[in-house]
């Protein structure tokens, strides 16, 4: 069975928020791999709508459906988008809202 997020992992949330890319602690990487290793159907992706300036959240349909762009989820940085998706996935896996 794959790793399930534990209550003590809450302390890793700030690490991600401060640095969504790159050198992460083993504990955080384990959570990220858990979040990222999901089927393509329903997986979050980003769509670049203005080069280097604007991105929108989108949902992959495993090529059975068009990529669904969520036009109300607009970001001016990719880091902002990473944090938004992290929160959505955390909620989906734990039921807990992150602020």
């Amino acid at each position, binding site marked *: 069975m794959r790793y399930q997020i534990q209550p003590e992992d809450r302390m890793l949330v700030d690490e991600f928020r401060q640095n969504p*890319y790159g*050198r992460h602690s083993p504990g955080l*990487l384990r959570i990220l791999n858990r979040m990222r290793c999901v089927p393509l159907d329903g997986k979050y992706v*980003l*769509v*670049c709508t203005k080069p*280097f300036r604007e991105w929108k959240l989108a949902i992959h349909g495993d090529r059975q459906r*068009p990529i669904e762009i969520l036009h109300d989820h607009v970001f001016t940085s*990719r880091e902002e988008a990473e944090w938004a998706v992290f929160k959505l996935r955390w909620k989906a896996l734990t039921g807990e809202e992150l602020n």
Partner: protein
Amino acid sequence: MLELLGYADRFSVAPGEVIEFKVSAFEGQRFRAEIVRLIHGDANPDGPGYKHVVVPSAIEGEYQGRNQPIEAGSSGVVPHHPAFAALESFTLLAMVWPTTPAKGRQAILALGEDLVLAIGEKCGLTGRVGSTTLESDAPLLKRHWYLAALTFDAASGRATLIQRPLHGYPGAPDAAMVSATAKGPGLADAELLIAAEGNPRRNHLNGKIDSPRLLACALSPERLEALLVRPLAADLLPDLVAAFDFAEGTRTTRIHDVGPHKLEGRLEQMPARAMKGWCWSGEEMCWWRKPEHYGAIHFHADDLHDAGWSTDFAFTVPDDLRSGVYAAHVWCGDAEDGTQEDLIPFFVRPRRGDRNRPKLAFLAPTAAYMAYANDQNHIRGEAAEMVIGRLVTYQPADIFLHDHPELGLSLYDRHADGSGVCYSSRHRPILNMRPKYSSWLGATGSGLWQFNADLHITDWLESYMEVEFDVITDEDLHAEGLALLEPYQVVITGTHPEYHSTRMWDAMRAWIDRGGRLMYVAANGWYWRIAFHDELDGVIEVRRAEDGIRTWEADPGEYHHSFTGEYGGLWRRQGRPPQALLGIGFMAQGFDICSYYRRQPDSHDPRAAFVFDGVDGEIIGDFGLIGGGAAGLELDAVRHDLGTPPHTLVLASSEAHSDIIMLVNEEFGVVPPNLKGSEHPNVRADMTFYDTAAGGAVFATGSIAWCGSLSWNGYDNNVSKITGNVLRRFLDPAPFR
């Protein structure tokens, strides 16, 4: 959504020659066109920004666009022969290995519209004789061989469909025989199609076909296997119309009939050849040593060799046009997201045979561009986000590719039936080989990969170094060998020259040994062996054999190139590891952020003094447009046991990589638990230098990201300094010792 797209009939063109451009404007819009010289393709506002200059030419102007569709899917075609029309009774037979039997109708053999042997909607075989349809209810098992046959006896009007598995399983009722009364088909003018039916082609097959046979009598079901025996039984010979041997002409796109008419057919859209046939036993792993075991062709409904678009305009390269990287710029609007324009790249090489050239050449890794052409691992691969350590980002071109699978696949993809894509062609729009394009794969920051990343190099040569250079391509090197390199004292590579034919490899080795000086500002180079086709330009083959970073694995027994017969796979597995040529070889990969180098003791060796002239400090490249550092994406390092020359200087090594960067799999046998960047000592790039007895040399950086740091801080940085020092010294003819 993209509104227009194009491609050229070639990548590389010399002064005086003509290059043709083919454009599809999907709504038939009018579009404008011009020729531009590409200077910098990276639109990242943290760098120099996108730059091109317009080259005045006769093609400049407005054109009426048209929608030019792409029809993917491979097939075989045998033109009509009078013997087809003369058929009254017949037996149509083939061995078939379906890979997607549940996909719906897929033709196996079709003689006109009236005589078709196919896979039907019920996953079993189906046959049509005239207006009669016969259908098997027994589902075919995927990736199993079947004898498939359709017979018709004109005297009795009896048609019979036979589906017979080569191996049966208890509880798997996949054999069937169905009969019905039929009227003979009309075969006047019928051509024989293999793996498709109709005109235009439809109902393409995913799967292998071996040994198609056509007999002018209704053979009894008990005797069908006799048609697979060579020589054919004497009593069958008088009725034989055609017997195809797909093992003949494997290196070509022709198919051969060993029957009495010696029919000649052709293959369309390049199905895979040198494939194991129904009788492959494993006793021989090489197709040309036992061709009778390799009588299959693997057809795919998503094979694409040539989009076949018509030409919209042709550009004659002026005699005085400088060698460089160019594009045909076509546009029908000015949308900020780039969806109303296309920039179709091409390379102006020096005039053929002209040996009075600048001392420097940029070798554009066009084989690698072809290998990655329309890569879909971000569209189809579940692991993409983990491998890049961040959300997968789609550009408009990626969404278009997602929605248009007919644009064809890269050598990194699998066909829809799960089999690996072993051929890739440039005769189609290549959406990820464009200036301004950011790739899902190319690290944080600019996110460049391959072609657009390589413009970092040519920009630096032109905008900062102001040095004269030629542009030559992999295809030129394959075609002309050592003679192409001989005029140059220095060759600088692209960022990721991964794919090389034997002739390319031999030419580079010979040139270095004769005094050539190679600047390998790259990583994961000279990795896969490829083959070019004998007869078709612009198509390459790879067989992902044995090991290496493989997004698919060649099936056992299918490790030899169909184009050449050579054993495919990693150059390392051919006894030619990259370390032997470059000093370093592929060691680690990961696509999130990039890191920096630290100078090593060898950097203080007098032989390396020129490299660090004017460079302060120990840390190199802790900045850049690609991932924020000069060391990343893919990394190469020395291994003396793999051929790093003993006198190689390790000038600097990278460190502090993230744990997304991990050791590559050919570097370990038993899986160790310390593969990650923070744990394994070999997850690093080595910057190296070695010289040769003839005055040649190789400088290697061991990182794909290196060139993304060249322009940082207005080109005033230690990556630019080191690269410039090496280039100036390499251009200086003085020997190294």
